[in-house]
């Protein structure tokens, strides 16, 4: 029962922190994108426009909740809730410090992959239940995309698992504390695996260059075309939370998690997570969108063989390198 109370308390705190981070993350992204394009970004609400996200949330919640007449109503309503659940659920096993972790599962890595991978089902359900051709196309693209990036994502995550010999995420961080960060040493499976994970994570959270299901220049707004108000904001939110949790998982699996000198572990973990989160925005505002077939080609013909090679290399490292364990 003690573990249940601990999990619930930390869960609530972590969810609140994630949501606050996302609110300011959206502000940061708009400022960042503005500066990249010689604009100022939001300036009106609060000092430096800091409260812009909160104004946006209030605006979205006030909007009319529209369910299209020919839509599959129950599924249409359920999809955004499920999407938010999947995005937040993956955070349950992420260790933000040796103690700040909602549930230190021994299969943490599998949990992250499973819950994160479920995201495609509410996305498709939203696209299909809208009964709108653009939304349906977006949903189809989401499914096709998920079939493609899933394998490289799992293969990339297997590298730290094989090197550290555990699937408990806090165990992987602890291994990196006593050895090296996976992304640093051994360089050959480590660094490319980190890059592979980041690419697949961008695809999983539907971020540019892989925001193919949304593709606002082709599909209006893809799966979210028919959504308004609170339901739309849930989708919007879950996309950001998914990216944030993906960045946190990347820092834990590849960048040593809470490991770092001079400051408490929580600070290091936050710093690494937010750096990766900002990197995603940098990519987002720098690159163009891939075509659906280009993504599949990239995932199946380049990233999957690379992932297999990396898994073999890490197995060889564990087997043959002196003092690997």
């Amino acid at each position: 029962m003690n573990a249940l109370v601990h999990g619930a308390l930390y869960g609530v705190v972590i969810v609140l922190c994630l949501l606050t981070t996302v609110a300011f993350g959206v502000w940061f992204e708009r400022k960042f994108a503005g500066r990249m394009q010689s604009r100022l970004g939001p300036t009106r609400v609060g000092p430096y426009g800091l409260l812009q996200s909160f104004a946006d949330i209030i605006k979205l919640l006030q909007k009319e909740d529209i369910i299209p007449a020919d839509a599959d109503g129950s599924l249409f309503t359920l999809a955004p809730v499920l999407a938010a659940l999947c995005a937040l659920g993956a955070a349950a096993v992420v260790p933000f410090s040796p103690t700040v972790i909602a549930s230190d599962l021994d299969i943490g890595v599998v949990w992250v992959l499973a819950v994160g991978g479920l995201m495609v089902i509410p996305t498709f359900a939203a696209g299909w239940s809208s009964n709108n051709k653009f939304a349906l196309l977006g949903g189809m693209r989401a499914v096709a995309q998920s079939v493609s990036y899933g394998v490289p994502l799992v293969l990339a995550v297997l590298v730290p698992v094989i090197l550290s010999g555990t699937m408990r995420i806090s165990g992987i961080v602890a291994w990196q504390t006593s050895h090296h960060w996976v992304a640093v040493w051994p360089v050959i499976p480590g660094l490319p695996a980190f890059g592979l994970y980041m690419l697949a994570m961008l695809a999983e959270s539907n971020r540019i260059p892989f925001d193919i299901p949304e593709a606002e220049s082709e599909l209006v707004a893809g799966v979210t075309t028919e959504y308004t108000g609170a339901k739309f904001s849930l989708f919007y939110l879950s996309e950001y939370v998914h990216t944030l949790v993906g960045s946190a998982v990347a820092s834990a699996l590849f960048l040593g998690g809470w490991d770092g000198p001079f400051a408490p572990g929580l600070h290091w973990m936050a710093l690494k997570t937010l750096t990766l989160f900002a990197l995603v925005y940098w990519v987002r505002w720098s690159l163009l969108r891939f075509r659906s077939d280009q993504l599949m080609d990239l995932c199946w013909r380049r990233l999957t063989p690379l992932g297999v090679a990396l898994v073999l290399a890490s197995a060889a490292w564990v087997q043959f390198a002196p003092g690997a364990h």
Partner: protein
Amino acid sequence: MTSVAFGVVAALTLLTALLVVRVTNLVRATLWLGASLLSTAGIYAMLGASFLAGAQVMLYVGGVVTLMIFGVMTTRRHEGLAAEAESTNTGRATAVSLALFVLLAWAIHGTPGLDVPATNGVGASPEALGRALLVDHVLAFEAASVLLLAAILGAAVIARRRDPGVEVPKPGSRAASMPHAAAEAP
């Protein structure tokens, strides 16, 4: 407490499984199948087989259901939300399901050691599972993968024979992204 929770999850599994076969809309049936597989994972987790539960969610709900949606969406003509399931061979389907049920029930009944209560998942840790699959029963494991490979090849052959007009697209060309080509790939 535990038995109540088990009852709820088991009831959910059965209810959703029933909905899979009773719902006439194929997309909805597939989504119900996802819910059913998710509840099955819940039963695994309650028995202490957390790795098995995670793998079930990752591979079946995240993978197989996604592929089935892909299949439904790429092989049928759609007007709006309609995707009606056509059950024309109820008799044969009943016979096959009954035969499968009898076979499974016989196999499960004949397996020794199932009448003792689960000992908190000691035998189902990832390590024990990996050892059982890749050391103790490696031959059966590999035979199963060969069987699956044969099934994939068979499916590809059958799909191609039915549709003789389909040319094999060059990998990487635009045609490779066309639905009929992609649907064969998995």
